[in-house]
């Protein structure tokens, strides 16, 4: 019968791990936005993540130039 006790302790521990996983998911806000992640995963970032060569120019000045043109 002592094997029963061992099994119960084991099963409770396993269930406890899942409970903790649920706690972690709820606390990190994974239940708050269920739509964006489902869309995000459909976009694959296959192209190289490299930044363009002209990063030496501050992008902000670029933005200002762009809007200034209007």
């Amino acid at each position: 019968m002592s094997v029963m006790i061992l099994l119960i302790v084991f099963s409770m521990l396993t269930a406890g791990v899942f409970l903790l996983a649920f706690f972690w998911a709820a606390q990190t806000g994974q239940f708050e936005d269920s739509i964006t992640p489902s869309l995000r995963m459909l976009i694959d970032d296959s192209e190289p993540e490299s930044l363009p060569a002209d990063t030496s120019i501050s992008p902000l000045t670029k933005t200002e130039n762009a809007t200034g043109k209007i």
Partner: protein
Amino acid sequence: MNPLWSNTISPSVENTSKVGVCYHCGQPIQTIPITQDQRSFCCVGCETVYQLLKDHNLCKYYTLQETPNRKAVKPLPKDQFAYLDLPEIQDQLILFKEGKTSLVSFFLPDIHCSSCIWLLEHLYRVNTGIRRSVVNFSSKEIQIWFSPQEISLRGVAETLTALGYEPIIQGHSDSKTNDHNLLLRLGVAGFCFGNIMLLSFPEYLSLDASNSHQLEIIFSGLIVLLSIPVLFFSGWPYLFSAWKALRRGTITLEVPLALGMGVMFIRSLWDLGIGAGPGFMDTLAGLVFFLLIGRWFQQKVYAHLSFDRNYKSYFPLAVTKVIENEVEEIVPLSHLRIGDKVKIRNQEIIPADSLLITGQGQIDYSFVTGESILQEGNPGDFLYAGGRQTGGILTVQLVKPVSESYLTKLWNHETFHKTKEVAFSGFSAKVSHWFTIAIIGVAVSASAWWLFEGESRRALEAFTAVLIIACPCALALSSPFALGNALRYLERNRLYVKNTATVEAMASLSSIVLDKTGTLTEKHQAEVSYEGIRLGSEASLFSELFKQSVHPLSRILAQWLGSGDPTVVFSSFQEFPGKGLTGVINGISCRAGSSLFVRGIPETGTGTRVWLMAEGQILGCLKIQQPYRKGLGSVIQALRSKYKLNLVSGDVSEGQEGISDFFEINEPVRFSQSPEDKLLFIQKLQKKGNKVLMLGDGLNDAGALKQSEVGIALTEDSTAFTPASDAILEASAFQQLPQMLKFCRNTLQTIYFSFGLSLAYNITGLYFAIQGNMSPLFAAVLMPISSITIIAFTTGMTRWHAGRGGLR
């Protein structure tokens, strides 16, 4: 589910530009296209965004979806976001600062597809000062972590605007946090419920555990351990509100629930302690688990809607104050005083009642009154707060402080300082009151009977069993499930109801108050009618005349008058801002405009009128009106059969044509109502014992929406600003309003029925409980069966009623 789903990824991946359609925004190109890399653009704005994306290696944006951006990028004033440099404003907007990073959240109404998510989450490529950005698609919000040393808050806002996502910046955003704890409580209850059931299995199957007494003790101990968090963590909201109700001297439904839960726990501890039986811990855990599911089902969060906006979230955070001559300063709205001069640019809002000093006002009051035809303003004119200037720059001088203006002083009214009472609590409270008294009566008399019989042990058992079995679990589940389901049906039909209490309130109304402009009339359409001498060839002359002007009214009229005659010869043309147009066409001198301008006498008629004159002869006048909503007649007819109807309108004109066709003589139709008059009118109706529904659309209805039992704000676009209300109705669903109200009444009937059903369960249980020999297994079976039948009954009935009412 979400209407936005229709806009998700489309498989077509095209890199070539379609002819005649802007590569960036997908709008047809009306003028000469601007070409760049063999791609055509409709305007400089779109081309600029393309250039910007190309420069930062972000052209993948265009491959994810064809013409991802729906709106043409409009050029914006350069210092539109200058106020974001003010430290006071920054303190309001920045959520937190940690070391070298700040976090800010913006509302971007233009987010609509997966390409938007991709682009906005790659903002770090556009500007290295932006560290990380995360989009919430359903609430159309973006969180941006940026380094203030490298990019200012203003820079972040400008970067977004340059990409075509103009942030809507509101200082007073309401927090829309879900009850985090509810989810945790639900998880814990579910975990414990499952495990307690598992440990009770030997009992369920009547397995003889006597050969291992040790095992039995371990099982009991574990059950007790598991039920402690169920009662004190998961069940805490019920214990707490029962205690609060008792302290107030009232009895709510939580009182018998908490009583049952407490008795169950103590009796089970006792039973397990003395080894008298397995106790009721499984029933307790199941009860709490089901109750929390009901609670979770009942709460509904509309990510992109806000029900608590007041004028402050519509008004700007800061304005450009003119100090002296050319010196300007950006100041927060709260620093404005009477006499200050303020500069209002295109698309900016007039912050307080003021006098127009310079500039030509073309002011859009549609968010305030619902009137979408622009109001003219000339220097010296009085301008009301809340209007949005469309056109050139204005300078205005404040004559009232911001909070004391005609519109904004409404918020000083006492109505805005109290919270609405929950309407339905009356019935629920009455039921719980008598229910609690009855079960305590039954419990006491049952135990008295057994005491009289001399069986004191049985008396105690009967007493506790009554309280356990009568625990009104099914009763407490019926309204969350019926109302929660009703909320979902209404949402699918584009009526977004704030909470379940509002659905209850919507079922017990007696009177409906309607606003006219923007509510009963279409907001963004104009209907033109003509009175006067029949127009022959003049029609095409005037059409050409109106085509020369960019004034919004001229555009509407030119379109109405027909295509015109492009061969006409203009010998002269002149536009008098705020007055009208003159021109000599084919040798005929034409004049069109206000009565004073054309006829030399002030306007006597109502509404917006444009007079026409040719060769010194007055031909007649064109009347521009917003048309009534489609199906208005049948909606009013349907509402009339059940409710008393009233109309309150801020319009001056009493002779407004058409409205009397819809309303009967005994139905009050009131005009010239100030925002406060509307509120007081509702109060008057309520004093006569009416339960009032207010249907309005603009900020001038805000007081009435707040005062009424149910305030529904009508909107053409659910992402647009709506005044504080209990529910938001999309204009396209207006015709279904009578069916929706009927559905709410039916939902309440369903609740009454299920109350009866659950009482029947309780009485059956009581029959066994008073005999003092109720087995825990019986409770463990009866409780879930009654709960599940109630859940099935209420959800099934609301579904049936929705289908019968034509709601999808």
